[in-house]
């Protein structure tokens, strides 16, 4: 673009186009004042879309719960006891101790465990319930 083109362009920019008539201006003013329908507003559309997505996700979760959670509950009911075991307890006897009232006692610790096994033959799964226990006690001693 040479200088002469630039001069013409500058001169063109100085020309002042006639403004739109007052009827157009007032019609546009009315349109801008009119409340926009929710469907026409992109932000409202966004809210609707987000709600729809949220509700769809919730519905999917509910369906998933009904379809997948129920069989799990049913499967739990299929477990049957196949084994119950209580191994012999171990007893530890400690040296005698003197109690606050002057008498003597021998501390004893007893340890044992209970184990049960549950099996679901349909799914070939096994549940093992192991519960160890421990108890302390004092055996009074008579002294002469």
């Amino acid at each position: 673009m040479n200088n002469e083109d630039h001069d013409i362009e500058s001169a063109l920019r100085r020309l002042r186009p006639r403004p739109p008539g007052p009827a157009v201006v007032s019609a546009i003013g009315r349109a801008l004042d009119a409340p926009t329908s929710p469907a026409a507003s992109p932000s409202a559309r966004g809210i609707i879309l987000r709600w729809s997505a949220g509700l769809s996700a919730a519905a999917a979760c509910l369906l998933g719960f009904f379809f997948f959670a129920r069989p799990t509950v049913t499967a739990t009911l299929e477990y049957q006891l196949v084994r119950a075991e209580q191994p012999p307890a171990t007893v530890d006897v400690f040296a005698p101790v003197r109690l606050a009232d002057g008498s003597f006692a021998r501390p004893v610790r007893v340890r044992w465990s209970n184990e049960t096994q549950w099996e679901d033959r349909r799914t070939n799964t096994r549940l093992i319930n192991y519960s160890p226990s421990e108890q302390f006690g004092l055996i009074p001693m008579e002294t002469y």
Partner: protein
Amino acid sequence: MNDAHPEQDWRAWFAEHGARLRLIARQWTRSDADADDVLQEAFVRFWKHQRHLPGNPNALVVTSIRRAALDLHRRTDRRALREQVVSADAAAVANFAPEADPRLQALASSLPSLSAEQREVVVLKVWGDLTFEQIGAQLEISPNTAASRWRYAMEALRRLVTARTYE
């Protein structure tokens, strides 16, 4: 969707740019009344659906004007080819306020003498504030073609203004 122009006073924006937008609308319509209708429809359409979009709204409004003008042509005339959209009305750009400067007045009265295609590019560049690339996108021509039309238009205007000034 977030509003990219939450503080924009669109009534004020239109008051500032309405005149040049109407001149653009006039390029693609056959009468002043049609230009007003197209401008109104295009701006309201932009305001309803596109004012939230980021960037300079000018190009979007110009695009909206062109679409509204095409819609009007399709409604009123089945010949919806682009060539028919370009107004053949020689008075299409005689829409300027009177100028005291004789050179400016000569320029204003020379614009209708340009070919419709050249005039279209001139109006979009000067009053549409579009680049050659944007003009090309609007008119579905290459940016080089738009620039070429611009150069021919400048050359023609220079000749016409010189002739009219010394008449």
